[in-house]
């Protein structure tokens, strides 16, 4: 999707606030939104990439202007409504239109720390087909992608790169966002900054992206 979220290399955003106070949460509601995301139920069939896509679909003005965890609220709310967990009217009224249902039993911080460990979700899957590329191979990335979710950013489309590392086969994000689990070989690909940016012709800097084989052609 050619959305506002695809920010790599876009210009005009100005300086970075480097003097931010180093605290985990800057307001109570940020912490509560993060926590809801970690422990809320009612997400049968959701995938991480479908959720990312729902966040990308936020109105571009809201995406840029509203606070970060506010966009999580809107992405979770939209994804829940889409799944039928509650309705638009219920969230607008901030009230369920049904009698309350007993929530899951409370857990304490010690149990939370175990749950954090159990969130080490693996995305690698077996794949019989042998990888097409080897370390050092020259590739070119696809120019045309998809109007749905993809993890090939605009700034790295149609660009030459070199296979830097191979990581086995992982669930392919583009398919995962549409509810299907299809493994594809994944590589770290290195791009020369001078191949990406007009002003970087004299630089030796490099940009590394983790890209699925479906994004790549032999060069």
């Amino acid at each position: 999707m050619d959305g506002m979220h695809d920010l790599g290399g876009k210009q005009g955003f100005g300086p970075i606030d480097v003097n931010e106070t180093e605290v985990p949460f800057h307001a109570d509601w940020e912490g509560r939104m993060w926590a809801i995301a970690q422990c809320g139920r009612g997400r049968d069939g959701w995938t991480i990439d479908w959720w990312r896509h729902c966040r990308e679909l936020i109105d571009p003005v809201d995406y840029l202007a509203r606070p970060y965890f506010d966009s999580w609220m809107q992405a979770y709310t939209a994804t829940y409504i889409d799944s039928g967990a509650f309705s638009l009217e219920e969230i607008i009224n901030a009230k369920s239109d049904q009698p309350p249902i007993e929530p899951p039993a409370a857990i304490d911080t010690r149990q939370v720390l175990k749950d954090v460990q159990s969130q080490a979700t693996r995305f690698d899957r077996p794949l019989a087909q042998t990888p097409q590329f080897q370390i050092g191979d020259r590739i070119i990335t696809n120019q045309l992608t998809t109007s749905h979710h993809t993890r090939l950013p605009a700034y790295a489309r149609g660009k030459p790169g070199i296979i830097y590392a191979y990581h086995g086969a992982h669930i392919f994000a583009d398919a995962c966002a549409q509810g299907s689990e299809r493994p594809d070989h994944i590589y770290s690909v290195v791009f020369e900054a001078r191949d990406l940016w007009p002003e970087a012709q004299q630089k030796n800097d490099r940009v590394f992206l983790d890209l699925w084989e479906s994004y790549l052609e032999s060069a």
Partner: protein
Amino acid sequence: MPSFDPDTVSEIHQHLHSHLPSESALRVKALETVLVEKGLVNSQTIDAWVEAYSEEVGPKRGALIVAKAWSDPAFKASLLGDAVSTIDQLGYLGKATAHLKVVENTPEVHNLVVCTLCSCYPFSILGMAPNWYKTAAYRSRAVRDPRGVLQEFGVEVEDDIEIRVWDSTAELRYMVLPERPANTDGLSEEALAALVTRNSMIGTDRNLQANV
């Protein structure tokens, strides 16, 4: 079940844009209330999650990993070769680190981590990401103007040092292993960990200092 249909979700977003209150705190409160009433979340459990990420899961974990790598060459080799099982031995494997890679700074190379497409971050070892990491300014510029970004953070990188920017486009996550500061011989792991800044593990800090 989800529709997996972008048009459906775009339409929901338009309604939310028009009808939700403007204030973020009220929005999140509404979501929590509805989820509690639907039996999908427990508010005390939310309290416990906030506490865990405020007190336990944070960059001090990453700092200890760095200090161990500075102190023990075998640990460092293991960390660079297989970060996942190495942090698992410390009990730090978890949220977003099942495919962790550690990249090493050297006198010739500086590493910088970003997620241009969203805000991917190795939560179980660094805790909550700083706000700046999630802003359009950082996400847009880190891949294009890394030296300018570093300058804003007060880090000068000489022209002959190669900058490697890692854009977290898949489920691999990256942590930078900064260089050990000079004049730290004989310091304990705990004392070394206290010298490690969060930003140095993202790559927006480079020249760590010994306490004087």
